[in-house]
């Protein structure tokens, strides 16, 4: 599969996976009383300025997150994945995602899942902004600058 070619529409798998993500957010709230935003969890784990101080569970959470695809494969499942191979582009993308989520105080999970579930207007504004920026960026890269 190449970037820019069709991917199968998977409503049921996506819904089920989404429920698991929501369940994890509920676990983090029930157990630790925190928002399950991955950018924030990573910042806390790394002890970055202004981040939360409870690092123990954050490190453990990231380890679980990283081991998940290996668990799927150990159980005989397959993990389909196609990652863009334009490495300078990926470096820029990573820098933008890290800087943006730090400055904007959240990502797809923190503002998206957790913020919307709290009915936070601030999170809704963030989600609308990053979705619009994502749609616009893909439109420019694929349909104006060409490629796909």
């Amino acid at each position: 599969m190449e970037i820019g070619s069709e991917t199968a529409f998977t409503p049921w798998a996506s819904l089920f996976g989404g429920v698991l993500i929501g369940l994890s957010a509920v676990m983090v709230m029930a157990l630790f009383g925190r928002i399950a935003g991955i950018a924030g969890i990573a910042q806390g784990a790394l002890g970055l300025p202004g981040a939360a101080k409870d690092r123990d569970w954050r490190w453990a959470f990231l380890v679980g997150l990283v081991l998940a695809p290996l668990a799927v494969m150990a159980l005989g499942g397959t993990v389909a994945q196609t990652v863009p191979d334009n490495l300078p582009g990926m470096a820029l993308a990573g820098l933008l995602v890290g800087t943006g989520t730090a400055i904007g105080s959240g990502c797809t999970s923190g503002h998206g899942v957790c913020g919307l579930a709290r009915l936070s207007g601030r999170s809704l504004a963030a989600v609308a902004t990053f979705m619009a920026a994502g749609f616009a960026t893909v439109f420019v890269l694929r349909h104006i600058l060409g490629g796909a």
Partner: protein
Amino acid sequence: MRVLWGFLSGLVFGLGLVISGMANPAKVLNFLDLAGTWDPSLAFVMGGATLTAFVGYRLVWRRKAPVLDRTFDIPKNRTIDTSLLTGAALFGMGWGIGGFCPGPAFTALPLLAPGTLVFLPAMLAGLWLGARVKAGGYPQGKGAAS
């Protein structure tokens, strides 16, 4: 206990990312490609996750405190300010280029795709940079990512 439950929470989150297709940048980029090879699957991921959290949070908040901590720590900031919108716009641009948001970038790590191995350290550097910018005040926010 905190470490064990933290690990399990992360594992469930990661399984959700893998099963839902959110850990696959090709699928994410197609979701963002309304005018091309659009794949609406990720709307179901966000819908399923948000509805589950909406209901679950309300059940959890009936308790006085979380199970393994003293207090619920819920963001109180309600202001929609420049740093929020600037940060979200930068994040959306990076998401549209790479197809990774922070969670999937971690989950993709053991598959060792070259793009992931470049994206993840750059993202961590960006988190550090953004945290520095934020700690030092907002006005430098735009310059930091250029």
